[in-house]
């Protein structure tokens, strides 16, 4: 099964679980959790099932395409089910079978790993799921998002698509994954990967990006005053990405780092609060 078939197949599976199938978000995010389809929608505390591919950008993780497992950009498949179904672990395991993994012939394990995003004020309890010792999924029951405790608990399932493809295709390197019947992952992505590594580590203009961060931070506040929650949240996402870029460029000291995180968390909390106020007003 090639990479794109895997994506189609897994989408098909979750579609059958009555998930809304969305497409990747149109702004740079570090994880599928940042997508408003997760971050904002779970604050509704209503039934909400959605699934989508997310392009996850983590500038610091780049290795110029030289490490078989580390890239500054990879694909996640994100599932959010609120409230979490009683048999969600089984539903998840069946999804692996659906994409052709004979689970009983392998070693599947749920290993404690409590996920937390300090910038999003989000945390939950859960596991990393191991398949023959490889972490292929992060599984989290959110307890809090946007610094607000949730009353209806969702399950978030985040698959590492490249890793699952490696597993299925028995490949030792992400670069060797068959993307389609004709093209390998490296043929589709490697050139951009290398260039972005140079950009992230060496050439991103830190003065320019710092100013973008600050302007975006102001923009969030302004937009919230105008009750434009979704646009305001877009700028929170941008802040987070600019912070990641500055971090990769190595211009943020540890102390400043903590400070940046608090700034972004304050923004995400303000957005979440405004969103909740509006929802509560509608009821």
């Amino acid at each position, binding site marked *: 099964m090639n990479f794109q078939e895997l994506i189609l197949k897994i989408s098909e599976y979750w579609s059958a679980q009555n998930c809304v199938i969305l497409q990747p978000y149109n702004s740079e995010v570090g994880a599928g959790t940042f997508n408003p389809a997760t971050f904002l929608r779970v604050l509704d505390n209503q039934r909400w099932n959605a699934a989508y591919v997310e392009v996850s950008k983590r500038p610091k993780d780049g290795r110029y395409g030289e*490490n*078989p*497992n*580390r890239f500054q950009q990879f694909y996640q498949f994100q599932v959010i089910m609120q*409230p*979490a179904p*009683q048999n969600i*672990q*089984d539903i998840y*395991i*069946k999804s692996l079978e659906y994409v052709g993994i004979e*689970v*009983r*012939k*392998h*070693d*599947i*394990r*749920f*290993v*404690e790993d*409590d996920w937390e995003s300090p910038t999003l004020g989000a945390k*939950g*309890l859960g*596991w990393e799921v191991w*398949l*023959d*010792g*490889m972490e292929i999924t992060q599984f989290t*029951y959110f*307890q809090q998002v946007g610094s607000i405790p949730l009353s*209806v*608990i969702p399950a978030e399932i985040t698959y590492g698509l490249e890793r699952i493809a490696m*597993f299925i295709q*028995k490949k*030792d390197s992400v670069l060797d994954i068959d993307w389609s019947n004709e093209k390998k992952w490296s043929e589709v992505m490697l050139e951009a990967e290398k260039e972005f590594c140079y950009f992230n580590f060496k050439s991103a203009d830190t003065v320019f990006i710092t100013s973008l961060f600050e302007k975006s931070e102001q923009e969030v506040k302004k937009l919230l005053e105008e009750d434009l929650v979704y646009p305001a949240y877009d700028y929170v996402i941008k802040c987070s990405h600019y912070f990641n870029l500055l971090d990769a460029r190595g211009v943020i*000291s*540890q*102390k400043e780092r*903590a400070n940046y995180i608090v700034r972004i968390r304050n923004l995400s909390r303000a957005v979440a609060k405004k969103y909740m106020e509006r929802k509560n007003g509608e009821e």
Partner: protein
Amino acid sequence: MAKNNLLFELGFEELPVESNRLLREKVLESFASFPSRFKDSEFTLKVYSTPRRIAVFMEDIKLTSEVFEEEVKGPAENVIFAGDSLTKAGEGFLKSKQLEKDLLIRRDGSVFYKKQSGGEAVEKIFEDVFKKCISSISFDKTMKWDKTGFLFPRPIRWAMGFVNNNPMNFEIAGIKTDIYTFANRCISSSRMTIFNAYDYFEKMNENYVEIDFEKRKKMVKEEIYKAVEKLSLSLVEDEDLLDEVTDLVEFPVIFCGQFEEKFLSLPSEIIVAALKQHQRYFSLKKTDSSLSVYFVFVSNSPYAETNDIVKNNQRIIASRLEDAEFYYNNDLSHDLKYYEEALKKTVFHEQLGTFYDKVQRNKKLAEHILSKTKDDIGDLELLSVISKFDAATEMIKDGKEFTKLQGVIGAHYAEKMGYDREKASVSKEHYLPLTNEGVLPESAAGITFSVADKVDNICGAFVSGNKPTGSKDAMSVRRDSLSLIYLMIQKNLKLDVFELVSFSLGEYGKMELKDEIIDYLKKRMEVLFLSYGISYDITRCVLNKEILCPSDALKKANLIKDIKNNEDFKDIAGGLKRVSNILKNESERELPLNFKTEYEKNLYQSGIKVGEKNKALLTANEYENTLKNLLSLRKPIDDFFDNVMVMDEDLKLRETRIQLLIFIRKIFSEFGDFSQIVFESDQELKR
């Protein structure tokens, strides 16, 4: 007749290892004290647990407790009765208790009545005990998962119970007990109906669930040893890891894998840590105790295809070791100067500055310690940087998987950078001992920097508002304190802890915290000494001083412990307690030498003699003889109390006698505060 039994199983999603251990302990604890009225002669209790379930099995129980009648005391007679007829209150009482008038017994001014007790069903008591147990456990972290809002470390998904063949019937965490359970995840995800306890055991067995933790652990161990033997290698023993993997699987299946030879050029600690922290693999070593490329791991899958599972695991560990190698080579491309600069940008603690600041503080403390011990350990500047530079390396910084190797990495890198082994090892040694039983530093530099590091850590925690409380100790002050005291005792260091604390606080400009820290350290010493078999009162006796050298304190405490029941000592301690009471509101003034009786004179002269002798002995740390001399004061003290009245009406005589006692007390307090000693007879009096 067959024995009655009860089986209950609670099922959940994979519980974290620590939570599972706690759950197992607490359930066992709760049921160990299951009421005896439900136990028959051969009552047995078993608690079973896997990552997905906890089960309680009780055999030879009574289904209902015996019914018995007891007499209960009611209200006063004159409230219930007016003569022979009932009062209004009396009528109400009968109604509320559903009693008849002639069932009341009138006696001693009260009414009594008979009540039937017992007859409770074992199922109900089980439910109460289990629920109470579950809700009283304080897990590290808990979560909600559905609208019941029940809190547990992971979602609870099923409950099943039987009393003999009869299903139990109650609700826990919003789940009704039922008659099904689940097999090992790798076998099936369908419900499995159970008929009774014995059926349960059989089905668990058939479906690859070893419910008994100890048996599972034994399986893991035996299988690992078998695998290791086949390879003619030996295991890098790790009991914690063994316990952990036992709690990660329901049915252990062991596999062997190997990594590429080239990774053996990495320090073995890094490889072992990568294998353990990331993947929970056991490392193996060759007969010359060098690391081998083989490792063993424990899976949960009886049907796994060996070839696939081993290959997949090998691929993962290769990429982990690849990462470690990347950090390693990168780290060694820099020199110590580079890291000294990097320490300036590496935060040690938000309120306590960078690692560079920490290094400076440790260096000053080390210098101060050396001025006391008169040791010469060489270039302090260099050693202080070597001790901490690894905090800025890729391998250690940002809280990665190798953080636990802090110190070990530093020592290894420093040697690679060309520093001699003794200097390099200060990085590793100054963290030792890790606990109050741990391996000790050996070099003078290691010992000096260990004391400095710990004193600064302890004071720093209080300075930054992180003083430890019963439930919180974010900066591990407790561990550092115990390790520090242990180190000072083991290495017989002639250092005053209180003075070191003062010096450190002086550097922080926070002298006001001194009393609080000293109190804390004294309490830790009480705990540590207790573990050496020394009771609190003796520890208090030797701690109640202005200076505190732990090794001296322990020597004194042991001497007192040995003679505590000696008659002379008892008598003297009793006398000193009396003195302490008499002197409660008195203060020291000049001692007028106008003694009226020979007893006073004699006590004074004996005191002078002992005082002078002991001064020399104490400086030479001759505690045994010091104590002997003190005991020789028994007779003069006894004679004094037998024949002299302290609170004489003549105020001049009284003042002389009071000042004489103060003088005598001072001679004792050079050794310790004997009025702290508690004898069993005192305790009985208190009761």
